[in-house]
């Protein structure tokens, strides 16, 4: 976790550093280039520059600079006699746009609430208390009180569907002698089962020799995955989002 925070800070610092000239470059781009290439550089009368091989191969303006300075008269692009630092700002903006396209798969904790908030909170409450049977385990004033303040909107939506597994899954193993041992499940596959008992000791058995009963509290959530409509999910999210 620490390592990823450090990396993130460095990345953010690099991004911010790049962002100042890129912001200046954006203004200049909109003014001088946007008419043909679109204000966001994704093309209009002229080509999409985010997808441009030349822009993608450019290092520090070595390819973009000459095109801006000399234009492409054969393709109808005029030369733009801009100062070097202005060209560098435009270059920074174009590289930022390429980076943004490459990062368009980023969907994380900063995902905006308004994009997710397409449901109806009242319908969500009705689903919570009715068809979803959420109320049989959860309460808006109990375990879910303040849940909307606890999680970023995106994570709240996803945790409705798949809550993090709790610290343990309760399991009871019945041995050949009939003894029942209850504890926390460690591993279960086709061939073996292992668990920690109430006193903290580890046990394992071949599956063929014992009876295993798992009480997975998340099974109800998994059973819903094939039942939810998208509207159910968005309504439920809108409702839980009111639990600040």
């Amino acid at each position, binding site marked *: 976790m620490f390592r990823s925070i450090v990396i993130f800070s460095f990345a953010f610092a690099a991004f911010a550093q790049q962002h100042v000239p890129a912001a200046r470059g954006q203004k200049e781009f909109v003014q001088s280039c946007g008419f043909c290439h679109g204000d966001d550089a994704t093309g209009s009368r002229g080509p*999409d520059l985010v997808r441009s091989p030349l822009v993608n191969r450019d290092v520090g303006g070595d390819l973009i600079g000459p095109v801006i300075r000399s234009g492409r008269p054969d393709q109808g692009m005029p030369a733009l006699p801009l100062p070097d630092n202005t060209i560098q700002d435009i270059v920074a903006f174009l590289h930022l746009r390429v980076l943004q*396209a490459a990062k368009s*798969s*980023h969907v994380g904790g900063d995902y905006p609430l308004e994009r*997710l908030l397409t449901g109806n909170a009242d319908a969500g409450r009705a689903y919570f208390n009715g068809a979803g049977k959420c109320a049989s385990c959860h309460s808006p004033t109990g375990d879910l009180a303040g849940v909307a303040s606890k999680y970023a909107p995106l994570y709240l939506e996803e945790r409705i569907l798949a809550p993090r597994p709790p610290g343990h899954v309760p399991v009871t193993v019945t041995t050949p002698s009939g003894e029942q041992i209850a504890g926390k499940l460690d591993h*279960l596959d086709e*061939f073996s089962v292992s668990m920690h008992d109430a006193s903290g000791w580890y046990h394992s058995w071949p599956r063929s020799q014992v009876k295993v009963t798992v009480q997975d509290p998340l099974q109800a959530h998994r059973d819903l995955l094939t039942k939810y409509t998208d509207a159910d999910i968005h309504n439920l999210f809108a409702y839980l989002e009111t639990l600040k």
Partner: protein
Amino acid sequence: MNRKLCIRAALCGALAANLTAALAQGLDPATLLKPPTDTWPTYNGDYTGRRYSPLKQIDSSNIKSLTLAWAFQAESQAIKSTPLEVNGILYFTVPEQVWAIDARTGRQVWHYRYKKSDGDHIGHRGVAMWGNWLYFETPDAHLVCLEAKDGHVRWNIELADVQLGYFATMAPLVVGNHVIAGVSGDATDIPGFLESVDPETGKQQWRWYTEPKAGEPGSETWPANSDAITHGGGMTWMTGTYDPDLHLLYWGTGNPNPVLAGDARPGDNLYTCSIVALNPDTGKLVWAFQPSPHDTHDWDAVETPVLFDADFAGKPRKLLAQASRNGFFFVLDRSNGEHLLTAPFIETNWTSGIDSRGRPVANKEKEPHADGRIVYPGSDGATNWMSPSFDPGLGLFYVVARRVYSIFYYTATGKPEGWAGRDHNIYEESTVRAIDYRTGQVRWNHELGPNESVAGILTTAGNLLFTGDSQGNLLVLDPATGKTLWHVNAGGSMLSSPMTYELDGRQYVVEGVQGVLYCWALPE
């Protein structure tokens, strides 16, 4: 034997004579035309992609005594490649690295390391071989030709520019005097292609682009007056198959770009997410079938197009079957692309039916959206690059099938570029399934547990099916029933597809588990 075949046989013969004079250790090209026994000369073992071995020393009666012959610690990232085995040497890879090891003992013969390179290092599937030479694709989308005897570089060519977002992971396919190499990369909007190069020089012989040129057939499946068709993706990142009698190459293509942004590219988006039949000498398209028209979920149709001859609806046919990433199983007549069967091999929620041409019809409501849409399978797919297998005796097609529930978000606000969104997995579990190719019905199902298994499948004439579960166990199942016959906890996940060969009268089965190759055999 038709005229074309005679010429090819003559060419093969000439090549073989030429090579035998110069070497004792190289690959006789004729072995590529036979089922694999003492040799596993290409990614799938042979041209059919069946991954069915006629070997039967290890069989259902003696499988309980299967034991470790040797293990090789690559001390590398996970091995996702299938080794080749030629004249007692195994050749396998991870990104930037190739090993040659003794197939009898697991001792290293040589190790080749490419330079530290740009490009995605997500995985590597292996090498191809022609005569004395190996062909290895690199993360920066180069194709390197190595001497098989010592790993020395003969030449190195650029297939595509890594700066534009291309990379490469696949094992090329050798057909005659063609080394056929595909490329990867869908983070940026670049066109996919398949390239054939001369095995001796690396000189380009042909290049087939996934997207047709404006005005060509198929171009009408892209928006007019837009740059969509020239930036439409469709990577060729898995090894195809080949029918020497029909002289057709079969290849699966990847998803269109921008990946999740359907509105940016209205139409079917040919030939992305397609199975294409190409002439291996010219790269010209002969026919195509599209498992996922207008894909918006990253469901590459690159899964092995498996070839077999069998009766279908009472008529003998040359068949091609694919269990596709979108959750559907397809059977085609591979001589002309005629569609014969479409059937789901796992529960999905993204279609509103099957169209008259046998293609699933996507439900618009299940396209990625800003508020998130629950879709199964997720982008990781109902299956993926792990190898399927076909047992011709039983007529069953085997696939590792996954229940992947995922929520798809669309992120673009302006013109979408790149992925334009992503999906997040909610829950996954895996199974092995045996599909009756005549009906698409699942004959048996063997649950593999939670998580996504990416283990491939091998079947053998010993009535055995080799695979792994998603919990670290290697498994041998009865291919007729799915019952477990043998298992071992190998201490990690099998992220590769098993292969087998026989040397000195002993059958070996090799399975990659993370950074280790395990070799199994009966006790000596």
